[in-house]
C-alpha cells in the first residue's frame, strides 16, 4: 500500500501543475500585500503570492502569460509570471498607480496616476514609459473602446470621463458625471460607456459617439440608507444584455438589464464589494468583498451566490485569464 503513495502524490502534483487549462483567478489583497490565486474548478485558494505595498488594480496580459498588479504605495506595477506564480518584473508606472488598461494588441498600457493628475503610457515590450496625458484631479477609472481608438479616464475630484484619442494622445471630449467616478466599462459593441459614481450613488450611461450622458442608473434598496449605496465595479456580459454592479458598503451586487438600464435584482454578497471578473465561459462571476476578506462566486445564469472563498485581508481587484 505504501508503495502507491508516492505515485498518488505524483499524480496529484501533475494534475496541479500540468497545463490542464484549469482557469485561475488572481485577487489583490490591499491590506496584506498579497495576491491570492484561486482555482475556479475547485474554488480553492491554491497559492498566496507576496507582492509590493497596497496592491489594487490587477489584470492579465492579453497573452495570458503574466498578471500585472498595481502596487500604489511602491509607485510601480509588478508583473507576475502566471506559470511560476512569482513576481518577475516591474513597470515604470509613474507615482501611485491604481487602475490601468491595455490596448487591444497588449503592447501599450495606460495607467491612472492618482497623485499627479496624469495618465501614463507604457510600452509593455520595452518596459518603458513613452508618454503621458494630463487629465483631471485624481484619475482613476480606465477603459478602452472596443475599436481601440478611444481611451477613457475618469477623474474622481474633477467628476469627468475624459475621452482620449489613442492615436494623437489628445483629449477630444470631457463628459461631466456625478461625484467621484471610479470605474468605466464599454459594452462590447461600443454603443455605450458605463461610468460608476461612488459618492453620488449612480451609474451614468454615456453615448460614446455623442459624448453625452443619455441615461442614469439609480439604486433603491429598501431599508438601506442612500449614502451606503456606492457603486464601483461594473461587469457587462459579452452580449451586453446583463450588467452586474458592485455597490460597495451596501454589500450587494445590482443586476441591471443592459437594454432598459433597470435594476432587476439585488444579490447579497460580502461586506464592501469592490470589483469583479467573469470566468471565460461567463458561467460564473467572482466579486471581491473588501471588509469581509472574501470572494463571492455568483452563478450568472441562476443569478445566485453559490459560494464564498476566504482570501487575504481587504481584497480589492480581481482578474481571470481570458481565452
Amino acid at each position, binding site marked *: 500500500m505504501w508503495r502507491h503513495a508516492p505515485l498518488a502524490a505524483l499524480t496529484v502534483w501533475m494534475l496541479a501543475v500540468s497545463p490542464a487549462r484549469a482557469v485561475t483567478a488572481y485577487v489583490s489583497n490591499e491590506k496584506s500585500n498579497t495576491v491570492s490565486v484561486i482555482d475556479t474548478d475547485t474554488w480553492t485558494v491554491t497559492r498566496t503570492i507576496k507582492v509590493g505595498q497596497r496592491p489594487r488594480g490587477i489584470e492579465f496580459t492579453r497573452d495570458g502569460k503574466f498578471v500585472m498588479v498595481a502596487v500604489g504605495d511602491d509607485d510601480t506595477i509588478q508583473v507576475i509570471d502566471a506559470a511560476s506564480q512569482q513576481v518577475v518584473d516591474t513597470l515604470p508606472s509613474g507615482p*501611485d498607480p491604481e487602475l490601468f488598461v491595455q490596448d487591444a494588441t497588449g503592447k501599450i498600457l495606460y495607467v491612472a496616476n*492618482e*497623485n499627479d*493628475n496624469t495618465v501614463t503610457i507604457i510600452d509593455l515590450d520595452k518596459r518603458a514609459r513613452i508618454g503621458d496625458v494630463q487629465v*483631471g*484631479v*485624481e484619475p482613476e477609472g480606465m477603459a478602452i473602446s472596443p475599436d481601440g481608438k478611444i481611451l477613457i479616464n475618469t*477623474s*474622481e*475630484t*474633477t*467628476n*469627468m470621463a*475624459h475621452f482620449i484619442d489613442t492615436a494623437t494622445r489628445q*483629449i*477630444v*471630449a*470631457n463628459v*461631466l458625471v*456625478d*461625484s*467621484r467616478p471610479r470605474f468605466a466599462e464599454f459594452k462590447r459593441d461600443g454603443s455605450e460607456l458605463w461610468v460608476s459614481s*461612488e*459618492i*453620488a*450613488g449612480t451609474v451614468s450611461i454615456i453615448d460614446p459617439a455623442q459624448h453625452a450622458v443619455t441615461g442614469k442608473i439609480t439604486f433603491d434598496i429598501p431599508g438601506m*440608507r*442612500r*449614502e*451606503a449605496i*456606492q457603486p464601483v465595479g461594473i461587469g457587462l456580459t459579452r452580449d451586453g444584455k446583463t450588467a452586474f454592479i458592485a455597490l460597495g*458598503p451596501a454589500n450587494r451586487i445590482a443586476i441591471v438589464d443592459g437594454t432598459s438600464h433597470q435594476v432587476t435584482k439585488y444579490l447579497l454578497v460580502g461586506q464592501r464589494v469592490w470589483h469583479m471578473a467573469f470566468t471565460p465561459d461567463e458561467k460564473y462571476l467572482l466579486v471581491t468583498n473588501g471588509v469581509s476578506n472574501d470572494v463571492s462566486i455568483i452563478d450568472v445564469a441562476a443569478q445566485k451566490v453559490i459560494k464564498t472563498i476566504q482570501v487575504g485581508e481587504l481584497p480589492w481587484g480581481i482578474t481571470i485569464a481570458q481565452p
Partner: protein
Amino acid sequence: MIRALVGAIGFALLATGALADDPVEVGIGYLHRAKARPTLSLVEVPADNDGVAGARLAIEDNNTTGKFLNQHFTLDEKRLKDDDDPAAAAGELAGRGIGLILVDLPADALLKAADAVRDRGTVLFDVGAIDDRLREEDCRGNVVHTAPTRSMLADGLAQYLVWKQWKRWLLVVGSHPEDKLYADAIRRAAKRFGAKIVEERVFEDTGGARRTDSGVTQIQRQMPVFTQQAAAYDVLVAADESEVFASYLPYRTWDPRPVAGSAGLMPTSWDPAHDQWGAIQMQNRFVKLNSRRMTAIDMQAWTAVRMIGEAAARVKSGAPKAMLDFLKGPDFSLAAFKGQRLTLRDWNLQLRQPILLADGRMVVSVSPQEGFLHQVSELDTLGVDRPETKCKLH
C-alpha cells in the same frame, strides 16, 4: 452671408470640442484675522496660512477641472487686523465684483460681513466659526457653513463614547464664553445619547503665559489635585476652546481615566492622520503644495472652494445666486474623502459631514456611529436637526 458666417463659427466651436463652453471667471475672496490664536501645544500653533492653504489647493483642483470647461478660479486673500471693519472689507471685495467670499472670522464679525454685502447678492462661506447660533437664531440666507457646529462636534464625540460604554462623564469647563458654549453642546449631547455627567468642574483662567521657563513642574502637581475626589467617572470631557488647560490633562488626572473633548480624543472635521476613503491622495497633494500637514480649517476652506467649483461646473456659470440655488438643491453632493456624500441642510445651509475622532496621531473613529439611525440621513444625528431648528432663512 451672415448665416454662412454664423454657421462657420458654430462649426469652429464644435471643432474645438472641449473648449466650446463660454469662458467663466470666478473670483473668490478670503477674509481672516491677521493674528493666530495661541495654543498650549507647540505642535498645534496654526501656520500663517492656515485655511488659506486649503483654499489654494482647491483653487488648483478647480482650475484643473476648469481647463476642460473653460472656467478659471482665483483667490483674493484679505487679512484683517483687530480693529479692521469686516463689513468694510467684505464691501470692498464685493465692490471689485467678487460674489463669493470665504470667511474665517468670529461669529459677530462674520455677521457684520454677511449683512454688509447681502443686498449685492454676495454669498459667504463660513469656514471657521463653529457657533450654533450662526445656523440657528442668527442664520443668514447668504451664509453657507462648511465648518461643523459645536453641537455636531459634541454629538460625534458623544456617540462614540456611548458606543464605547463610557457613559459617566466628568465635565471640566473653562471660564471663557466659548468654553461655556462647548460645554452646553456636550451637555446636550449627553442627554441625547444617554450619557450622564456625574460632576462638573470649572477651570478658572487666571491669566498668564502659555509657555514659561519654569515649565511643567507646577502643572504636574496642579492637574492631579484639580481632578481628585471626583464622583466615579469613565471619561473626563474637557471644554476648553480657549487653550488654557485641556492639553495638560491627559496622563495627569487623579484617577487613571481617558480625556476627551478639547484634548485627548478630539472631534474634528479633518485630521492630518486621516487616510481612509482616498484621503491619502488629498493629504499628499496638500503636503506637496504647502510643505506642512492639512488642518481642519484647511479642509473646511478646501471644501468651500470645491463646492464653488462643483456648482460652477454644473450650472456652467459663475453667478452666485445660480450657484447657491444649485448647492441647496437635490442634485448637489460633494466627495470630500469622508466615505460618503456631503450635502447641504437646506433649512440652515450647514454642510452635513461625518465627524472624525482623533488623538493627535491617529483617527480613532468616525461618527455617526453604527446604530444611530435617522429617517433622512444618519449625518443628521449630528447637530441640531430640522424639527428643532430656530433658523428662518430669508
